[in-house]
């Protein structure tokens, strides 16, 4: 009984404060399991479950002089960092962002000053290294106030480049070029987002495929697959108008086909069939493209709010009118 209690006490004590603080080891190598995990994350499978244990990690054979890199406890963030640091000895301080990437977590404040200060203290970082510098990813800055960290934890925050892949170059001079400081949204970045966009509309998409509504399926695919690819080349600035344009182009063949499907019918009937497509497809596509603002790297809240007020009523009226006409035409036929 006594032995049992002692064991329990020991375990309880360990779970509260591990001393010396545990430093886990990691490498720069990505395994097949890592790649599989990344693939699942990109397809939004178990979206909140791609986590790394928060805390301090050693990479290679670090000394007390080695640099400390800060990241989020999302596998894609952690793996991007460690795989970019091939051949570099250092420490990785993983903040608990609940499995969210650095930029999104910083926007929410979970990748933030409080968590950073707490994690520095919990890992006793000041005993592990003899310098007082942290390399924090630039995109962590919306959550971290560098001067606050200095005041509270006595560590100087140095904002590294946006992309982990630029770290080896950055470490040579400890200076990021303007190019390293810019966030991009390349074709590759946008294509990477397509699976997540598709999964977001998966249930309606499957239902529409089953009931054979080709126009609606095309509208969904235009908004989730074509739009991310074509984004910079579609005219106008606003995402809604880009969506109306893309949806309009997609609707065109459907409208034309509907118009010529029953040449024996009355002209008004054939025109109304065409109109249904012209109303429904662009409104659905535009709604999806407006929602794509959340996936981009550059839309401001002010701009998105303006778009919502300016275009959502139009989308709703078009969709409602298209739906009513569609139902009415079912009775006519």
């Amino acid at each position, binding site marked *: 009984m006594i032995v049992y209690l002692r064991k329990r006490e020991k375990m309880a004590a360990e779970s509260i404060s591990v001393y010396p603080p545990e430093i886990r080891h990691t490498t720069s190598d990505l395994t097949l399991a890592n790649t599989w995990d990344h693939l699942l994350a990109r397809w939004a499978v178990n979206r909140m479950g791609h986590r790394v244990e928060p805390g301090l990690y050693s990479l290679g054979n670090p000394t007390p002089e080695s640099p400390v890199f800060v990241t989020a406890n999302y596998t894609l963030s952690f793996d991007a960092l460690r795989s970019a640091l091939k051949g570099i000895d250092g420490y990785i301080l993983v903040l608990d962002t609940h499995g969210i990437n650095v930029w999104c977590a910083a926007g929410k404040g979970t990748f933030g000053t409080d968590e950073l200060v707490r994690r520095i203290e919990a890992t006793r970082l000041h005993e592990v290294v003899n310098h007082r510098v942290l390399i924090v990813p630039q995109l962590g800055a919306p959550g971290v106030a560098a001067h606050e960290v200095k005041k509270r934890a006595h560590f100087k925050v140095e904002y590294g480049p946006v992309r982990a892949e630029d770290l080896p170059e950055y470490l040579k001079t400890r200076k990021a070029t303007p190019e390293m400081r810019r966030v991009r949204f390349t074709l590759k970045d946008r294509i990477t987002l397509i699976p997540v966009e598709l999964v977001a509309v998966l249930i309606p998409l499957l239902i529409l495929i089953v009931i054979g509504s080709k126009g609606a399926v095309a509208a969904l695919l235009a908004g989730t697959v074509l739009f991310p690819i074509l984004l910079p080349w579609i005219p106008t600035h606003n995402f809604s108008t880009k969506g109306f344009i893309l949806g309009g182009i997609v609707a065109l063949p459907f409208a034309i086909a509907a118009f010529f499907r029953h040449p024996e019918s009355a002209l008004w009937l054939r025109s109304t069939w065409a109109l249904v497509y012209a109303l429904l497809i662009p409104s659905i596509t535009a709604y999806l493209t407006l929602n794509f603002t959340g996936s981009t790297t550059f*839309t401001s809240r002010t701009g998105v709010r303006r778009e919502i007020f300016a275009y959502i009523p139009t989308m709703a009226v078009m969709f409602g009118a298209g739906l009513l006409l569609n139902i009415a035409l079912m009775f006519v036929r």
Partner: protein
Amino acid sequence: MFNAYETNTLQYDPSLCIGCDVCVDVCPHGAFEMQGRLAYLINAPACMECGACQLNCPVNAIRVESGVGCAAAMIRAALTGRKEPVCA
């Protein structure tokens, strides 16, 4: 043609600037640039209101109503009556 993103809530008071360079470092869209010993707001329309510059400016020379520019989150917040738009 109406461009919803032409203006935003970013405001900068250069008279308070101490030339620490942090706004230039944290902005992901190059809105600020060092000219001599002070930072200048050279591309305000590029601002996406992430709030990094405001949070990191040690002399509070920058003001921006930061938030996530995501229509889905904002529409969801409006529909559910939540104040703060968040990711699904």
